[in-house]
């Protein structure tokens, strides 16, 4: 059955569209429900909410423990972003430009945290930091998250570098620039969109990750994800929904920024 514009409009097409729609609804529904519930006026988690209010957001932003967790999460994610981007950029430069033995093995090692279950990495890091008596510190959690964020950063930056015309850097050298000046004035400005996008993904990797801080957090120093987990174990009230909505909003904002950046540089 061929339509006017040569498009197939048969029962098969309708079936595919229906399945795709069902998958999309299934993916988005939990997010939508959480956001709706977060505006509930009821005392317990219930859907649909009987009435709307902002009381759970007041509770969330008004409780010192929750506020402190936001600060901790942002600190850990920011440090992770800096560590992973700097290390990932250096590693990517070496992997794309360098000619040395064992390059494939090093690339595989850098990407391995993506394959190893996070809980294994978390347990390993826990024993490591216990020995150093460093559990419960923001730095330890950031180092742990750097391990998880490195693969993403390395994948994004190596892809960007492969599209970079190396002759531009050679031209800079021939014009008298040192390698560092060539990197700073020519290479970095041109690969900046890739580097910034990698940094944003590193931030997100840390911001919504639970397992590593679950092992490494202390009583005082807890990320948002850990505090959500702990409060789920003790009492289930709609504050959780407000916190979750906050996490979702931050994620959407960062992804949106990354998409905007990519669109601007494509023009």
């Amino acid at each position, binding site marked *: 059955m061929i339509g006017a514009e040569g498009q197939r409009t048969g029962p098969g097409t309708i079936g595919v569209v229906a399945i795709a729609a069902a998958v999309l609804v299934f993916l988005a529904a939990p997010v939508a429900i959480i956001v709706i519930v977060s505006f509930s006026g009821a005392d317990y988690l219930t859907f649909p909410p009987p009435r709307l209010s902002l009381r759970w957001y007041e509770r969330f932003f008004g409780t010192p423990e929750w506020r402190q967790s936001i600060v901790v999460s942002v600190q850990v994610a920011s440090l992770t972003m800096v560590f992973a981007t700097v290390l990932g950029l250096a590693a990517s430069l070496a992997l794309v430009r360098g000619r040395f033995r064992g390059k494939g093995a090093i690339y595989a090692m850098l990407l391995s945290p993506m394959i190893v279950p996070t809980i294994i990495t978390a347990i390993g890091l826990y024993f490591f930091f216990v020995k150093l008596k460093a559990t419960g510190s923001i730095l330890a959690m950031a180092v742990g998250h750097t391990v998880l964020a490195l693969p993403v950063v390395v994948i994004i930056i190596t892809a960007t570098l492969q599209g970079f*015309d190396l*002759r531009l850097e*050679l*031209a*800079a050298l*021939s*014009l*008298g620039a*040192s390698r560092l000046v060539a990197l700073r004035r*020519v290479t970095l400005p041109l690969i900046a969109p890739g580097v910034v996008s990698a940094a944003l993904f590193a931030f997100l990797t840390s911001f919504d990750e639970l397992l590593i801080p679950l092992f490494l957090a202390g009583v005082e120093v807890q990320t948002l994800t850990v505090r959500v987990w702990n409060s789920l174990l003790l009492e289930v009230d709609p504050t959780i929904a407000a916190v979750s909505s906050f996490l979702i909003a931050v994620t959407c904002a960062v992804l949106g920024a990354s998409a905007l950046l990519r669109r601007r540089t494509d023009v």
Partner: protein
Amino acid sequence: MAAPEGVRAGAEVRLQGLTKLFGPVVAVSDVSMTVPAGSFFTLLGPSGSGKTTTLMMVAGFVHPSRGAIAIDGIDVAALPPQKRDLGMVFQSYAVFPHLTVSENIAFPLEVRKVSAAEIRRRVGEALELVRLTGYERRLPRQLSGGEQQRVALARALVFRPRVLLMDEPLGALDKKLRAHMQLELKRIQRHLHVTVIYVTHDQEEALTMSDRVAVMRGGQTEQVGTPAELYESPVSPFVADFVGESNFLDGVVISTSPDGRAVVRAEGGLELRGTSREPLHVGQRVVAAVRPEKIVPQDARASELNRGKGVVDQIVYAGDATRYSVALGATGTLTVKVQNRLASRQLATGDLVELAWDPGDTRLFARASDER
């Protein structure tokens, strides 16, 4: 850069035994040549002949396996590219896409910590030199290929290097623009007295622009000379074929004379006289090379000329000239190029034609076992 004010004349570049191995592959093998100060020197050769690798070794981007590179007598082999003070123009232009035209040209001055006022003055002069005044604030993507090439040229000259290296810089331009840029390049080079080392595979470009040309083949220099020397007295069939074009006839030497002349019987029995740079002996197998424009159809009966009878096989009209393929039976086919003047009679396919050419225009090359 307006006048030769403060301009240092170009430097002499001397290559000695330059060799580059990439693993088992010999890219450049024992190349020695002297590029005279202030000259336009071209490395000419087909792809894979080692010309670009040689240039990259001079630039410092490729480390020689053996040999020395001296600029005005100073060995630079150990210096990194940024310390050699050589201008370089790449085939791809390599203009920085995130910087404006004047920022691109200011780049080499900024990294040399030249004062802002001096940078402004010299960027202005450089723009004037390449005739891009008024383009200061444009970005490279707003420029045509030819304009980007001029930016690259201005950027490579603004810090007054004594040697300018160019790697097939006009390869991406169309024919008209290329001819224009060739003239511009010559003008700028004469004006600045800078030594230019130019890489190209285009023999026409090499002949028109260069003071001296090194023909490269298989990583070695085949012949170094002025364009006229290469064209009129090639040292090998390869040069005779690669620079300009040549007819080749196989034959055997039947007599020699002490002045380097010899009589050759070509396949098919045609006897022709020619000259050789090296002594030949009777019975030696040789290749005779003669250029298409040196052959004249139906010339006066001067007895000292080589002559042969043939049938016009193919005609290619090229505007200023016509090229005929003339079959000489078992001897082979000769390409003949005739200028189109009113007086010259046009031949038609199937015409019987007598060809004549001077023995002095006939180069004889001893045949190596595997060469043509």
